[in-house]
């Protein structure tokens, strides 16, 4: 669904406040313009709780491509949780779409590491994440759950 520049700026501001109101530290977000004509952003949130060895981090990156009439469509995203205190990682990605489509037959993929830096599979098949709110909430749910991430239940795509 296409959005105007003002709508995307409001959406980005909303994502930052959503994280802050949950107790995360987030810098003021900025909607960037790229030399490709696209726009996008990257925000990082430092989550509350343990700082040992480092605080858990969530990042949200999105790229929106022009869709005509001053509107844009989200074309790529990356939502990542690196939970340093729990030593694990979870991520939802959509990027390099034509490569992934030709090699795996999917546009979206996921990452899951029960032990940080030691994935048992490089890419898991994923379903598209429809908004930053959905992606961030899914990562926050992982962060808030002390149990395993459940990587073994995902389908490895190689």
């Amino acid at each position: 669904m296409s959005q105007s520049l003002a709508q995307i700026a409001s959406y980005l501001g909303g994502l930052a406040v959503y994280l802050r109101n949950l107790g995360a530290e987030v810098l003021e977000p900025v909607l960037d313009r790229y030399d490709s004509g696209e726009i996008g952003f990257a925000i990082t949130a430092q989550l509350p709780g343990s700082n040992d060895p480092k605080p858990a981090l969530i990042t949200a990156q999105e790229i929106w491509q022009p869709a005509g009439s001053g509107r844009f469509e989200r074309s790529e995203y990356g939502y990542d949780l690196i939970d340093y205190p729990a030593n694990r990682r979870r991520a939802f990605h959509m990027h390099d779409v034509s490569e992934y489509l030709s090699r795996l037959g999917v546009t979206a993929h996921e990452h899951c590491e029960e032990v940080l830096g030691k994935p048992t599979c490089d890419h898991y098949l994923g379903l598209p994440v429809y908004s930053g709110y959905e992606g961030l909430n899914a990562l926050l749910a992982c962060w808030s759950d002390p149990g395993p991430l459940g990587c073994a239940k995902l389908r490895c795509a190689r």
Partner: protein
Amino acid sequence: MQDKPFLSPNDIASELAVSTSTVLRLIHEQRLPAIRVSERIYRIPVAAFEKYKAGALESPSPARVSAEVKKRPRIGAGERLPEAAEPIARVRSA
């Protein structure tokens, strides 16, 4: 030992001396920040509840739009692209 304290809607209800359904209503109306774990399970970070009690929750405002034009970043930079999948016919005949 991790220090990641979360409260349940029941915990919040006890703290505020209200019913759990009132807490769930606050969550659904987005007046109390919460992490939705599943259709019926919510977790509220203690930090979020402290902000709520202090009346310190922020209202969204639009992000600043940069006037500067930057080089397009690459999402997934450093990530190894997957190997090509084996053709389905070969997999089936194996």
